[in-house]
């Protein structure tokens, strides 16, 4: 595990995968917001557009949006007790299938500095018990292919969730899809960027954003 520090106070631990090249070393998008629910609509719009841009069909994209929205609402409600000034970071990674070089999975990490909860007790409730509330975790686990809660040091929580791209829509990593974009505005392959420099990150430098 490698500690990476972003441009602010969120140290992130990148977990070594069985095939390390599968995990993108840095996020495609890294969004910081305060724990004010008034901004959730903007996050939803961004996540939805991003998901469609990288190739998820509309139905999948809207469900991913729902999972992220639920996760952020949980942070605001439980992590920050409805305070409006808590810090939240949402990072979106395009993980590549190392064997094929194809974009295979969207990894979303949500980190906060709020109250910690034992990950073992974060569970969805019995759906037969029809009552208001408590559905968010169920939605997240139902929508995403993998969900992992961790406690951050010295405080806060980290939620890592992944959604695999449906096979029929998988595209080469260098050829993002252009959902809803006219041919004249079609996507260009991402420009080659210098490799991620952990030292620069440790010193608090910003990451280039495509």
């Amino acid at each position, binding site marked *: 595990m490698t500690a990476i520090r972003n441009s602010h106070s969120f140290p992130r631990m990148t977990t070594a995968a069985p095939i390390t090249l599968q995990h993108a070393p840095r996020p495609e998008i890294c969004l910081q917001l305060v724990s004010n629910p008034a901004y959730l609509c903007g996050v939803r719009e961004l996540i939805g557009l991003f998901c469609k841009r990288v190739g998820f069909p509309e139905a999948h994209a809207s469900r991913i949006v729902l999972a992220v929205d639920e996760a952020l609402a949980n942070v605001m409600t439980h992590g920050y007790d409805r305070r409006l000034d808590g810090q939240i970071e949402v990072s979106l990674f395009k993980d590549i299938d190392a064997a094929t070089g194809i974009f295979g999975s969207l990894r979303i990490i949500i980190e906060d500095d709020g109250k910690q909860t034992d990950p073992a007790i974060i569970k969805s409730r019995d759906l037969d018990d029809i009552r208001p509330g408590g*559905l968010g975790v169920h939605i997240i686990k139902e929508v995403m292919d993998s969900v992992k809660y961790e406690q951050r040091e010295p405080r806060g929580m980290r939620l890592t969730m992944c959604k695999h791209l449906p096979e029929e829509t998988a595209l080469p990593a260098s050829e993002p899809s252009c959902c809803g974009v006219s041919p004249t505005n079609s996507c260009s392959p991402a420009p080659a960027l210098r490799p991620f420099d952990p030292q620069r990150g440790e010193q608090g430098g910003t990451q280039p954003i495509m």
Partner: protein
Amino acid sequence: MADKGPLQMKFELRDGAVILSPEGEVGYHEAPALRIALREALDRKPSRLVVNLAGVAYMATPGLATLIEALQISKRTQIPLVLCGLTDRVRAIFEIARLPSVFKIVADLPAATA
């Protein structure tokens, strides 16, 4: 990014029934407005409360929670609650939460007021 503004509510009285038509997105931020509107609608003691969701582009679990709460009140007060006009996106969250069988859901407003 354009500010979509708050959730808009439309009330209509029709033959003793109240038709509540929220328009916009019902997430964590907007759900309290829907909750207030549902309470106001039920306080009028209509013969039926119809919630027309045709104008709701997005709903998250706080929106579901307010509807479940309204359903519980409607059962206590014996005011039938009918949902209609669910878009595919909104219907999807009802299905993920396994709620379609809990509510009376019909296709559209004419079916809800028939």
